[in-house]
């Protein structure tokens, strides 16, 4: 089938010689939202970092295909150009770099990757304003330094704002619900839902049911000790909530 977006086979990954992922298999098709749940230390964030190409992680075995391309052969920026976006659990502060400057560089890098000219200043600012409003970010945030002094909710909204700007094919949301109050959670979830189309897919990594009340998954996986130990439909979320991870 050519509707496969992402295909992970036998993926093993280590950080500083410690094996975290111990053989992960996962297939994601266009239009699907997958939830990856699991206890702390199961390897959820490692999976998202490996997908985005974080240099500190070493893939020791297995393969990842994204739209038929060998993802593991690509740099983090090439993966972004190809349509992968990672919403960070802990968004990084970049002192001295304003959101405007950061996003302008990012958007134009994506455009250059597609052989397009840089966006005109006026068009870029219009796009910024539109997407900031989309996640209810105040316009003055454009001048703020990236994530510096942001609250937990502001950081996560900034992630979804960036996602809206870059319009990825596969969004990976790493613990996007952590540190969010209900209002911020709703804004973030609505943003993710609004960006979802039948051509795209999302991986929602979370510890709790809460976010999945708002972003309803098609498939739910449980990651435990570096392996996917169970895969089912959305009914699995309630089962986990009831029984906990230990009894699966």
């Amino acid at each position, binding site marked *: 089938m050519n509707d496969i977006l992402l295909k992970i086979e036998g993926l093993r990954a280590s950080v500083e010689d410690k094996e975290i992922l111990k053989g992960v298999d996962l297939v994601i098709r266009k239009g699907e939202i997958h939830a990856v749940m699991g206890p702390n230390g199961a390897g959820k964030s490692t999976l998202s970092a490996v997908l*985005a*190409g*974080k*240099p*500190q992680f070493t893939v020791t075995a297995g393969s990842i295909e994204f739209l038929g391309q060998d993802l593991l052969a690509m*740099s*983090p*920026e090439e*993966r*972004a*150009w190809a349509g992968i*976006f*990672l919403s*960070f659990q802990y*968004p*990084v*502060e*970049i*002192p*001295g*770099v304003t959101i405007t*400057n*950061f*996003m302008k*560089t*990012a958007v134009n*890098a*994506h455009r250059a*990757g597609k052989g397009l000219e840089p966006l005109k200043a006026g068009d870029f600012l219009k796009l910024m304003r539109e997407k900031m409003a989309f996640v209810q970010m105040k316009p003055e945030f454009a001048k703020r330094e990236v994530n510096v002094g942001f609250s937990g909710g502001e950081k996560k909204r900034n992630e979804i704002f*960036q996602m809206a700007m*870059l319009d990825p094919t596969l969004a990976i949301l790493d613990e996007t619900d952590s540190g969010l109050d209900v209002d911020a959670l709703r804004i973030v979830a609505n943003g993710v839902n609004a960006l979802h189309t039948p051509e795209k897919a999302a991986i929602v990594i979370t510890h709790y049911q809460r976010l999945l009340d708002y972003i309803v998954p098609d498939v739910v996986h449980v990651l435990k000790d570096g392996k996917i130990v169970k895969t089912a439909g959305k009914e699995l979320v309630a089962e986990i909530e009831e029984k906990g991870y230990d009894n699966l």
Partner: protein
Amino acid sequence: MEEIIRNKEYRLYILDGHGTCCSDDPRPVPSALTHPLRGGAMSSPQSSSMTIPKHIVVERDACIDMVLLVMPGVSCDVKLDVRLAGEGAEANIYGAYVCGSQERVKISVDMHHDLPHCNSRQLFKGIAGGTSRVDFYGKIIVAQDAQRTEAYQENHNILLTDGAKVDTKPQLEIYADDVKCSHGATIGRLNEEEQFYMRSRGISLEDAKVLQMISFIAPVLENIPEPDREAVAAQFEDAIRNIVRNI
């Protein structure tokens, strides 16, 4: 050479070209200070005989704002001796240096607070790559009479390579008791978490490093009034990009 500041003065010194500059040297600094900026002339005209003064005396209620920029390829030995010699005198000295090859950059600042109610601020930021060597020596001397002094000094550095070396010696000598003084010095590397975050948004590693380095230097360049600032910032960006490409 001594310069006496009686009003509010602003000085911008740019050491570029591939010469060596030394503030002890009685000869004019070769080309360095007069090199026209790309994109337009300097708003503050500087004659070819202009050199960085070794001694600066700031008189009562006067103020000197100085920005000293050392471009890649330039080795220099700059010694500044600033004396706040009248009540209410103020000195703000900002400096940035970017080294990508075998430069030897020495900067030393003595900031003398002789009388009460004087303020001084020093901010020096620099990047050392290649096998360059940077020595920063800064001293704030607050005399016994200089009550109500406010004096701050910061020196921050980024090392790009294992071959580069930075030595920083901030010092305070305080003989008065009613003062606010601080100094700080850091030597670090480019943050890899920031780089990965930027790359995950499609910013190339090269652009990410350039952004990091420009934003590191920016607090110094912010003290240059327009229209010079834009031209200087563009010059730094080009220079930094060149260095990143050759790391």
